[in-house]
């Protein structure tokens, strides 16, 4: 029963958000049915749209795994965006160097570089300062996130990674490191089976790590009760560092996958916000790695559907941001829902009793 409840509540929260979104849309003078229709068809309406949705959700899923892992370890990694970009940067750098390597080895190297960079970015400064001087990880991961993005921007704006010319962008990665796209079905979607497989492996790895290994047992113990963890003989400080490093590792992997699978180079902008949306993805999934797939796809669908919604019904795509906000709100206060149900039941039973007495 509890398991069912833990699935139903986030779904209910999302539904409530969608209904309120509909009311909002109607109040703005649009037809909610057609607006939501365009959102859904934009996200799933064709094979190409579905492909786009999956493409958009992959980074959210992979980063979301890392954030779920940090939450389960009692830590709030709010700087995954920076870890994502530092991972992307490392992967791109490796991607246009070492071009004499065979393609598959070069790919693996890029991915490893991305993971390592993300892990170091989250593990060293936020991890060590949290473990040894108690600096709060919300602040340190956030600061490191800004540093990562500004550093990456410097690298391509006059820094050593800028491609010759005036446009702030890095060279393209070697063509044999670029993931091959689906040749049928998802052609326009910039979707590669390799990215999907990596995401699937990441999900399984996170799940396995959290629930089937002593490492995961230790991390969850530290997250739930650090004192008891210490009593159990777990080196709490070590696992705090590990938790943040692993969290960063997933974000870095997401960055690398995105570079090898979609972008192929660093471009100016750095405003994907994947790292922030992924926090909601993890929360909606209740930090369960398997749930992250669903909530990641959900938010991916909101992104692609939102773009279509704007084109088809002239509603600003930022309405999807509003929806996102509403969902965050309702997931955040999902405890309200059982309370409302309890209140309703009591009222009904009170009413049933009054005529009797």
């Amino acid at each position, binding site marked *: 029963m509890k398991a069912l409840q833990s699935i139903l509540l986030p779904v209910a929260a999302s539904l409530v958000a969608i209904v309120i979104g509909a009311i909002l849309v109607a109040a703005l003078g649009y037809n909610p049915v057609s607006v939501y229709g365009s959102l859904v068809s934009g996200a799933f309406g064709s094979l190409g749209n579905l492909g786009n949705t999956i493409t958009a959700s992959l980074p959210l899923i992979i980063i979301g795994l890392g954030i779920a892992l940090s939450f389960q370890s009692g830590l709030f990694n709010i700087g995954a965006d920076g870890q994502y970009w530092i991972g992307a940067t490392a992967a791109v750098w490796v991607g246009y160097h070492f071009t004499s390597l065979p393609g598959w080895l070069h790919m693996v190297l890029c991915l490893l570089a991305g993971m390592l960079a993300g892990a170091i970015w989250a593990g060293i400064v936020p991890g060590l300062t949290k473990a040894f001087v108690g600096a709060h990880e919300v602040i340190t991961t956030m600061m490191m996130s800004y540093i990562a993005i500004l550093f990456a921007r410097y690298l391509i704006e006059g820094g050593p990674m800028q491609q010759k010319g005036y446009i702030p962008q890095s060279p393209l990665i070697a063509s044999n490191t670029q993931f091959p796209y689906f040749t049928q079905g998802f052609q326009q979607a910039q979707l590669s089976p390799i990215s999907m497989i990596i995401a699937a492996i990441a999900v399984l790895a996170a799940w396995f790590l959290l629930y*089937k290994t*002593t490492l995961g047992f230790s991390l969850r113990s530290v997250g*739930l*009760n650090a004192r*008891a963890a210490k*009593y159990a*003989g777990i080196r709490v400080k070590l696992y705090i560092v590990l938790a943040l490093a692993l969290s960063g590792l997933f974000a870095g992997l997401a960055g690398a996958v995105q570079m090898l699978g979609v972008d192929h180079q660093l471009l100016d902008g750095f405003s994907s916000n994947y790292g922030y949306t992924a926090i909601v993805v993890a929360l909606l999934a209740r930090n369960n790695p398997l749930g992250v797939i669903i909530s990641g796809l959900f938010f991916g669908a909101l992104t692609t559907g939102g773009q279509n919604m704007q084109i088809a019904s002239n509603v600003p795509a930022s309405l999807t941001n509003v929806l996102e906000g509403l969902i965050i709100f309702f997931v955040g206060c999902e405890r309200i829902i059982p309370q409302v149900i309890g209140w309703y039941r009591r009222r009904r039973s009170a009413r049933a009793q009054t005529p009797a007495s």
Partner: protein
Amino acid sequence: MEPVLEVVDLKKWFPGVKANDGVNLTVRAGEVHAILGENGAGKSTLMKVIYGLLEPTAGEIRLFGQPVHFRSPRDAILAGIGMVHQHFMLIPALTVAENVVLGDEPGGVRFDRRQAVQRVRELSERYRLAIDPNAKVGDLTVGLQQRVEILKAFYRKARVLILDEPTALLTPQETRELFNIIRTLKAEGTPVIFISHKLDEVLEISDRVTVMRAGKTVETIDTKGATPQTLANLMVGREVVLRVEKPPAKAGSPALEVRGLRVRSADRHERVKGVDLTVRRGEILGIAGIDGNGQFELADAIAGLLRAEEGQIVLDGRDITHLSPAERTQLGIAYVPQDRQLDGLILAFDLADNVILRDFRRPPFSRRGILNRRAAEAYAKRLIEAFDVRPPDFRRKASELSGGNQQKVILAREVSRDPLVLIAAQPTRGLDVGAIEGVHRQLVRLRNEGKAVLLISLELDEILSLSDRIAVMHDGEIVGVLDGAEATREQLGLMMTGQRAKEGTV
């Protein structure tokens, strides 16, 4: 006498557990009504239902003859029910007066502090609850914090007071003061519901006793004429042995030696100030002392949770002063910590995960970093059965167990690790007499098997009935070591206040 509170055929079911399943209770004006029952019998659940924290599945509660339906503690408070939980719900940073009036402050928009202090002072005089309204709650002792909780109840005009295991954390002196308060209330006609596992307390303070077993009330009797033995038998439903049978000690070589140990607590105060101690194989060494004299920091230091500032800890001839808690566990130190919820368990984990908490890195519970859940479940099943943990379900979260059963899980885990030294800090706190009997038997069994047991307890009776030797601790130092068979309460009581023993120092 007119009944103040009546509970009629009350039921409270949780998924899979009938915590209350037919409870009948009548509390009269001016009586102290004790509730007795084994761990998990449903006492706390009943009180939570009466206090509006839980909704009954069926049944009726009447207050002064009127049926009442409480939806929250707020309703219960308004109707005149006051409750002091075992875990206090106070805000340490606020003063006594602020805590008492919190949620129902005098004054309009602006908080009228003067009036608050005045009202609290009046109340504390009326009920003889001596306390300084301007003291910060965080600075108060447990006994005084409890007074604040009681004041809180009467500030809200409680007409019935529920005390759920109020003496579990109190010193004997504080317990006596609490009993004086209860007598004052009784004289005023306010009934008190009193839950305790300590039979002598129940006999001393209560007028009537209601016994609960497996969610049902089995009997209500007058306290007059009852003996500890009759109460214990009623409660457990069988003959209980209140005294521990113990063959003479065959103390062997030293298992644990502590030399010149100095320890600071987490808040950097020096709490252990140069302790020398030897626990031998085949003996139970009891540490007697008033709470706060360093005995629990000593235990933490031996287990490796607190660092030794100075001195040496030697286990079986091997210096372990600088080893990690995990390494000490591996070498044979088992530890039942004093705070089960804070240190001993991960409440959100199920029982299978909790029983392997100290050993999950080792086969059969894991191999090369991969957990073996089946092994954990099989082990949990065995321990649950051997130690009679209720309900016997390893998938249940530790948080869903009654306090006494949580303690059984910890004890089962530590004792079953086949340790060389067992440190047991308050191992029977909150346990019912039957369970205490079981724990004591386990400790004696370990000792008879040639293991060393270091027993730290605030209960003199427990120390006296189990220990082969008794070390008395005062202000971070051992003031003397007595032979367990010869020591008397009086002697220990004197030494616990810091007077050195004249004879028998070892």
